[in-house]
């Protein structure tokens, strides 16, 4: 039979256990980003271009009839050059490499940028075939970000290339 003092002691200690769990299960609260900040997520997954070459008629003639593909495309994909400017300032510069042992996989990037909510000028430039100079995909526009808004920079060739969402 437990003594009254032991019962009181157990009630206090079990109560402390429950209180400890109850408190740290919900508190202190967590705030991942300040209220006046928005988030830009740059997330692109794209197969770089291939450096294809047109076969000459002589080359095609030497090939079996069922294999006479007009273009000679290597398995490897090109690196992808990517630049992001915000309000005229460089915020990100990178060259994405293709994945895979044979460098034939997609090139990917995922970055987060915390920016003050409000209006900004955002410019994204991408070149998916670094053999060629310059950028073959460019998207530049004025964006308006609400506090805690998430805006995504993505790429989809079916939607015209780079787009903001």
């Amino acid at each position: 039979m437990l003594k009254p003092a032991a019962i009181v002691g157990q009630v206090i200690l079990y109560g402390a256990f429950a209180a400890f769990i109850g408190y740290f299960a919900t508190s202190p609260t967590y705030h991942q980003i300040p209220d006046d900040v928005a988030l830009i997520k740059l997330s692109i997954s794209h197969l770089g271009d291939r450096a294809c070459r047109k076969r000459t008629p002589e080359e095609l003639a030497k090939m079996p009839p069922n294999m006479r593909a007009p273009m000679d495309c290597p398995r490897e994909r090109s690196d992808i050059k990517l630049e992001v400017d915000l309000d005229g300032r460089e915020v990100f510069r990178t060259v994405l490499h293709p994945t895979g042992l044979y460098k034939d996989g997609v090139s990917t990037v995922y970055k987060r940028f915390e920016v003050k909510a409000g209006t900004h000028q955002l410019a994204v430039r991408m070149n998916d075939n670094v053999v060629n100079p310059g950028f073959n995909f460019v998207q530049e526009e004025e964006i308006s970000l609400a506090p805690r808004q998430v805006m995504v920079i993505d790429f989809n060739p079916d939607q015209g290339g780079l787009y903001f969402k």
Partner: protein
Amino acid sequence: MSFHAALRNATKSVFLRVEEAFDAPFGGRDNPLRHLGAIGLYLLWIVVGSGLYLYTVLDTGIDAVYSSIGYLSQEQWYLGGVLRSLHRYASDGFMLVMMLHLLREWSYGRYFGFRLYSWMTGIPLIWLAYVAGIGGYWIVWDELAQLSATATTELLDWLPIFNEPSARNFLSPDTISDRFFTVLIFIHLGVPLLLILGLWAHVHRISHVDYLPTRRVMLATAAALTVLALFRPVLSNPPANLASVPGELAFDWFILFIHPLTDLSSPAFVWALLFGLTALLFALPLLPHGRPPPVAVVNPANCTGCDRCLADCPYAAISMAPHPGRPGSRLAVVDPDLCAACGICAGACPSSTPFRRREKLVTGIDMPQLSVNALREQLEAALPRLTGRTRIVVFACDRGAAAGKLLAADDTAVIDLMCTGMLPPAFVEYALRGGADGVMLAACREGGCEFRLGDRWSSERLLGEREPHLRHSVPPSRLQLTFASAHDSTRLATALTEFRTRIEALGATTDRLQPYLRRAPHHA
């Protein structure tokens, strides 16, 4: 002393002090700190039980998942809401108890030698517990789930695992589909099943496992969590919206602490910390340790194959095999990798009785460093030296109170044991018949035995509840069983004084046993 050893000893000292303080209200059997593993398992069963109910009412549609869980808390608070809260709080409790268990076992040095297997199999369970816990948060699909899902995938993407960043699955509201929650449910069921399987392996090499704490601890824990669930019910945050970053959130620091840590540092730092700590835990047993003590040795000629050592060994180090010299009989076999060198098997062996007349007492299973014969010789040498009005023999665990230094006197002989479980009960009667007025057995505090079961087996053998038992003809008035830890020297000294006073109060009673003088037979 190395830094690691100093840190370990300091932590052990804190644990010991708190455990001993908890003994006052809880007693040894109900002391939560001495049964962290069993409490952890109990909390896991609460999680599983409440989770099964939640699973039956959960709708895995992308919108319905939030509303079906919200319904439990709002409309069915008396059952579904309480079970949801129990599921959450028991999970948090499990994490807390698991980490305390890890810290305590490390501080007590229980990570090498015969405990290596349990230590190694325990480390992956921490990962499984956190995977299950974090995944569980996603199912609610509120803002906290959104934060955790995004942060976890961003953390995972730092590792070269996926071809495409997994965080792309949480870019915008239209990237999530119903199938995601179906897969998530399967993961949230599968990982805990793996955890339970891992727990089975974790305790596989010990015997007499406490799969559950005592009924009183279970009731009190369940009551505490239920009261918490009623007074602070778990509620969902606003529904997830991948088009915006969650605002201020009620945050579970037991399970999701990794996300703020990543935000404060970097994925590289967090992975380095997690892999570094895991590697450190795996590497701890490789640190230099003292030579392991000699393990138990079986003497086939004296082993009767009775199974008592098999029944009492706390670490399943003994198995029975056919006796090579006696067809139809069995022989105890010791696995040296599992043997803790506690001597409990020697105390369980019926051949260990000191009343045997052979000049050299050879028993069925014995410890080379302190054989039963050496124990009898120590006792036989000490008894004639005792003088005074009340002569007492103290058998004390040398991991408990420093009995040898404090209590030894002209009228008190102290015999140290590796564990009180190694004392065959017949030694008590042998000491009384050999001239002692009383025998005290100083075991470790209840539940505080270094070898798990020594205090329990000693107590049960002396009370006649376990074989080999103390003969009923031994007067209980001349026997004192005291539980004392390394910090309890004063308590032990007080217990001895009170025992002596009690014996002296008996006066010239008739409960004295007939003297017994062992004589070596001529053919020995």
